């Protein structure tokens, strides 16, 4: 196992390359989820505001 991790002494390079790539891809996925959630939040808020206005609430 440790032999596999060390990659013949070049582990830092190999895992450095794969590691950051993984982080970046996961980061993109996380960012996509967050974007989706904020858009949903904003839209449902707008709907709430609109229905309230249609009902004629002053506030």
């Amino acid at each position: 196992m440790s032999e596999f991790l060390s990659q013949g002494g070049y582990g830092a390079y190999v895992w450095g390359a794969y590691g950051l790539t993984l982080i970046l891809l996961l980061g993109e996925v996380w960012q996509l989820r967050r974007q989706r959630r904020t858009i949903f939040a904003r839209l449902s808020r707008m709907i709430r505001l609109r229905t309230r206005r249609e009902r004629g609430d002053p506030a």
Partner: protein
Amino acid sequence: MKLFRFSSPATFYPLAGKLIPLFWVLTALALVIGLYWGFFETPDRLGGTNPQKEYYRIIFIHVPAAWMSMWLYLMLAVWSAIGLVFNTRLSFMMAQATAPTGALFTFVALYTGSFWGHPSWGTWWDWDPRLTSELILFFLYVGYLALHSAIDDPRRGDKASALLAIVGLVMLPLIFWSINCPDPNQCAALHQRSGLSQMEGNILFAMLTMTFGLWMYSFAATLTRLRSLILEREGDSAWARELLERER
């Protein structure tokens, strides 16, 4: 006619929603197989004219990322062109959804190449034509994203950055060529690319599998982003409100 039906955001939104899980599954499968093959079914050393040690395994992420970066730029420009010619909102959104993922892969290619270059060439960076062109490609992606986000009116932003993407596509061959061949007097001798034909079968298989995986990843990511963009832009329309009511 059918094509036009799917070019409407309202019909495309649910369709994309059904496709995305499929792409995620394919991504995971391909990446697992590719990585397993790359790390366990390949030799630790490469001999030949260009001996390499274990660090050559960076190839399984480096080369697919570099390919995807170029492929996605092409897609970006094509969607932009379709948008400008037919004035379809969906193609602009498609272009906009493609750009961040493309920029990401460009960065990954640069970064992993750098991590390969240090053990192999003894330097993190060199002004090698291939490297430089990839850097310029990165700048083009960043320019597209910056222009789009600098314009408040989304429709003007769509069109302006679409035009930029097309101008970039026209200029790209010129730029690449000028970097590859800065000296037209001796151009023929300069360019040499170690062909894939010399590559061992296992390495090639792992690399192609990884490429397929990243490709599927690109589909999944861009479609997810596209769905968000559609909601953001069309959130006020009747179908989107209906959909929101249902999902709540």
